[in-house]
């Protein structure tokens, strides 16, 4: 296992080389883990423990290891535990100090005074508070502290949740705020949204209102919890709806979270109309100890017989859960649902109406622009789209017309949107937060949308012009599967003479490529000649890609599995999103990587420094690596498996992957020569026993199935060079490819392979 971690690509531009987090709870521990995931050393301090001084901080690290906060266990080595009595001098090393202690105003301010005494001048200090205001926290503290102090509000769990709300003040120095912005994105991979200094910032201000309003409206209108949640799901929010969401969050937190937020809002704020914490419903739930999933019963529960029950809001008794079927628009089309009317349609309208009115009224108070509101709410609460985009989907004009017909006052922002023909034109807002129209080039993000010039296109994808000879080959099949049309495109691109560099890019955020199409593989397997031609085509295209006269960089976000991984193994460089899932699961289906994957991996294992060398060692290492059908759960893990090399780059924010890949491709093009033909010195039949020793022992001990041992035998045959292999006669790539093909043909003919593939297709 690796113990050193390469820092994430672009980390040197963030101004943060070392970080510190104070407070080792789930948030602080998770933030520290995310710094470590980016390869940045971080101190994690908590109060001293009674048994061990660093016990609480160490427990925080252990919790992250268990809950998956670390992308690979070796990242934990970058987190140095400590305590706030002995180790505050370490803060002098940190470029960014994140405070994530409990929400106690006086404790935080005491801590800030101590931080100020130890930190290095100009370092950024931030608080992960979710309820306190920056101006209150900083009032009366030295000016030197205030100028470096911002709010950095993360969501739980910090590794997975995309949103980071940042609040700077007028007294904040630009470089301190900029560092939090850059490092929040470049190191922690978050989409950073700048917020104004108001209670709940953006996401929780809108999100808490929405939950309270949707719950209390449902109760008021006499809907069942299942009906309300089915309607709410049509807003493109997580399938839990709102009642299910409260069960998940914990109903016991209502007084704390909703109570404190509403108390901090001015009397005229619309949120007071839906005081969830002060509601009879909440009081009854608290009194009954119905806290949601953590107590085993909330608005839903699992009955003793395992059946699912829901709470009847009128009788306050549980009854069998009722499925809500036949919602207009299939439960996914909000406009259709509202148009259909009836109790459910009316409820849908009331929720959209209240959300629209509230958001429109507070937007200017909490945010600097429209996208900030939509981005924060969508990422913070897992909505497909933020509130203004929801309104656009139904139609801003329609919403305003209906408000008028109900005799309601229409906020200026909604009025402006209706007049402008909606809030957005594509990604660009049409209006500012006062409702005034924006000139096209004033709009945030307006410039980014220029469509690229298409240089070549097939039904499998297209070649986009990245400028100055850079081609971007975008795979556009579903999940990037390698249909023949994708190979058509690769061949057309490789035949061009005008490229200086090439980036292989994903057509969707979900995958660069999930590999070969299994149903097609099964169909081809009926005719060995056709299957062999299919294998040979992939091998020859990927090999040509590797030997092309220009650098090839693979940009990986989402999945790169099977053939999708093999294409990256042939690239000069891979730029992978930290959360990409890269793997070679072929053996799980009874075959092996047959588009040059075994050959490329063998070449990597033969690189000095990558592990034990020698023909026997190589064969054994390759079988050991490939037999489990490895799929890495992060890019760091992929590096540990050898699926990414040291020179490959890991990018923390998914949207930064492709720009980084393009920049690297351009840089490589300046002085590029294609790799030389390689020869492979393999063990021959003498190596079979050693290559198989591990798998045979595992089989004897009952740890693997007989089918896995057969797969190991085929792998071993390829990586020892086959029956004619001999260490005195190195093999060419073409000979290696022939061995891969022969093995896949043999393996594909087995009934167990067919059965495994069919079972996967059914799933």
């Amino acid at each position, binding site marked *: 296992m690796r113990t050193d971690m390469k820092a994430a690509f672009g980390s040197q531009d963030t101004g943060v080389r070392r970080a510190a987090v104070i407070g080792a709870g789930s948030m602080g521990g998770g933030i520290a883990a995310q710094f470590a995931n980016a390869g940045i050393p971080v101190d994690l301090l908590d109060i001293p423990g009674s048994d061990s001084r660093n016990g609480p901080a160490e427990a925080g690290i252990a919790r992250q290891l268990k809950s998956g906060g670390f992308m690979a266990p070796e990242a934990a080595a970058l987190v140095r535990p400590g305590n706030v009595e002995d180790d505050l001098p370490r803060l002098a090393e940190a470029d960014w100090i994140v405070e994530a202690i409990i929400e106690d105003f006086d404790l935080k301010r005491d801590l800030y005074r101590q931080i100020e005494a130890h930190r290095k001048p100009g370092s950024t200090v931030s608080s992960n508070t979710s309820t306190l205001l920056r101006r209150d926290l900083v009032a009366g503290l030295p000016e030197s502290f205030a100028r470096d102090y911002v709010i950095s509000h993360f969501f739980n769990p910090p590794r997975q949740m995309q949103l980071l709300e940042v609040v700077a003040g007028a007294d904040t120095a630009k470089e301190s705020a900029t560092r939090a912005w850059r490092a929040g994105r470049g190191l922690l991979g978050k989409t950073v949204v700048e917020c104004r200094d108001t209670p709940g910032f953006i996401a929780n201000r809108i999100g808490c209102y929405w939950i309270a309003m949707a719950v209390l409206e449902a109760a008021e209108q006499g809907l069942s919890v299942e009906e309300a949640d089915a309607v709410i799901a049509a807003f493109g929010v997580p399938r839990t709806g709102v009642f299910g969401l409260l069960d998940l969050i914990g109903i016991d937190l209502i007084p704390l979270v909703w109570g404190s937020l509403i108390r901090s809002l001015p009397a005229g704020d619309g949120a007071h109309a839906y005081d969830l914490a002060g509601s009879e419903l909440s009081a009854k739930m608290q009194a009954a100890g119905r806290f949601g999933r953590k107590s085993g019963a909330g608005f839903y529960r699992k009955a003793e017989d395992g059946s699912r029950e829901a709470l009847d809001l009128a009788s306050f008794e549980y009854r069998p859960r009722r499925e809500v079927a036949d919602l207009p628009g299939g439960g996914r089309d909000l406009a259709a649902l509202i148009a259909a009317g009836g109790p459910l349609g009316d409820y849908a309208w009331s929720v959209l109406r209240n959300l629209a009115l509230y958001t429109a009224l507070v937007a200017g108070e909490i945010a600097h622009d429209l996208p900030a509101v939509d981005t924060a709410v969508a990422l913070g609460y897992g909505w497909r789209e933020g509130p203004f985009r929801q309104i656009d989907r139904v139609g801003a004009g329609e919403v305003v017309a209906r408000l008028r017909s109900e005799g309601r006052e229409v906020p200026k922002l909604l009025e402006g949107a209706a007049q402008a023909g909606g809030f957005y034109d594509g990604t660009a807002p049409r209006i500012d937060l006062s409702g005034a129209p924006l000139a096209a080039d004033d709009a945030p993000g307006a410039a980014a949308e220029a469509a690229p010039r298409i240089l070549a296109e097939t039904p499998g994808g297209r070649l986009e012009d990245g400028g100055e000879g850079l081609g971007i080959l975008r795979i556009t099949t579903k999940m990037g599967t390698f249909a023949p049309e994708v190979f058509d495109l690769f061949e057309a691109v490789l035949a061009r003479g005008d490229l200086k560099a090439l980036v292989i890019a994903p057509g969707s955020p979900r995958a660069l490529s999930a590999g070969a199409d299994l149903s097609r593989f099964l169909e081809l397997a009926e005719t060995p000649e056709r299957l062999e031609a299919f294998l040979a085509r992939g091998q020859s295209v990927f090999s040509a890609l590797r030997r092309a006269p220009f650098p090839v960089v693979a940009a990986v976000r989402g999945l790169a599995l099977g053939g999708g991984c093999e294409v990256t193994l042939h690239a000069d460089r891979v730029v992978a999103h930290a959360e990409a899932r890269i793997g070679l699961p072929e053996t799980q289906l009874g075959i092996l990587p047959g588009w040059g994957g075994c050959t490329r991996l063998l070449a990597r294992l033969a690189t000095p420094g990558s592990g*034990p060398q020698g023909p026997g*060692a190589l064969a054994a290492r390759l079988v050991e690596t490939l037999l489990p059908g490895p799929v890495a759960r992060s890019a760091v893990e992929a590096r540990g498996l050898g699926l990414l090399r040291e020179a490959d780059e890991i990018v923390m924010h998914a949207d930064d992957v492709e720009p980084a890949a393009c920049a690297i491709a351009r840089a490589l093009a300046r002085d590029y020569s294609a790799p030389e033909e390689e020869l492979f010195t393999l063990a*021959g039949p*003498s190596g079979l*026993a*050693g290559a198989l020793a591990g798998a045979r*022992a595992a089989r*004897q001990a*009952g740890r693997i199935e007989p089918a896995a041992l057969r797969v190991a035998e085929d792998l071993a045959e390829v990586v020892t060079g086959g029956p004619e292999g001999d260490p005195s006669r190195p093999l060419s790539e073409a000979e290696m490819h022939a061995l891969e093909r022969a093995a896949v043909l043999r393996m594909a003919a087995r009934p167990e392979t067919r059965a495994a593939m069919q079972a996967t297709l059914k799933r």
Partner: protein
Amino acid sequence: MTRTAYIAGYTRTPFTFARKGALAGTRPDHLGAAAIRGLLAQTGLAPDAVEDVVWGCAFPEGEQGLNIGRVTGLLAGLPETVAGATVNRWCGSSIQAVQMAAGMLMMNAGDCFIAGGAESMSRVPMMGFNVLPPPEWEAEAVSDFVNVGLTAERVARDYGVDRAAQDAFAYASQQKALAAQADGRLAAEITPVETAAGPLDRDGCPRQTTPEKLADLAPAFLEGGSVTAGSSSPMTDGATALIVCTEEVLERHGLTPLARIAGFGVSGCAPGIMGMGPVESSKKALSRAGLGIADIDIVEMNEAFAAQAEACRRALEIPEEKLNIDGGAIALGHPLGATGGRLVGKAAQLLKREGGRHALATQCIGGGMGIAMVLEAA
């Protein structure tokens, strides 16, 4: 005149678990050098009195591959004029090293030797990095060599050592070792080693367990089998070093003899039951010493697996109270190339400590062999 070979000093490094133990980061040649330096410091033997370093290693590859006997001697600070050789008889390597030193001495090819051995199973895997047996061997023949756990299963089955007997044997080994460690009886043989985390002076392998915990373990090598991780010796890092010399060297350097070497034997058996190797080799060594098992007061027999050690104990009719009285390899660990030196050195030390007359050190060897050495109190 007949020359007599004496064991005039014995020490070893702590033994610790491979990969997770405190010595995992230490090269095997550095382990060995620490043991040799400790041996010289404890005995006061002048380095230039040494003829040769005869050094056992089971997988002389990688960091153990550059004639580790020679490399270790140089790292230990022995004069360049002292030679060094590597001896490979797999698990039997360092009993063999002691025998070779004694054999050279007895044919007047030197008066004073350092014998011993080292193995870092953290840094060079068991069977080495490149396992390349003759391709004409059937899978089972290869397995008999490389999957020794299965040979223990075969011995357990063929010689009737059931799961309960194996677990009881393993539990006893742990208890004996823990007691010896607690009483400071192991410290007499340990030379501390400097590690990145500071000096290490204690064995890392003995572990507090219970019969219930041992009974709960799943079979490690064979589905439905009886040999578990608890009744097997663990992968271990460590080194041992002994002085083998003539009477004249004892006197000249003021060394205190622990024992004299009285007999030796190696034997072969079917690779698939390699664990029974000690039976025939012990009989040979005893017979050459003119002794029977009843004459033996101390037995140090390697515990590669409880199954084979118990089967050999029964076959040789060794009383339990004479066997591995400070615990065996199940508890202490089994750094392959170093173990034989520990068995001989320990047996010699115990003769002195316990006041017996004769001792037997023996072990099984993968590939189907046994090795044994008989000692007499000096």
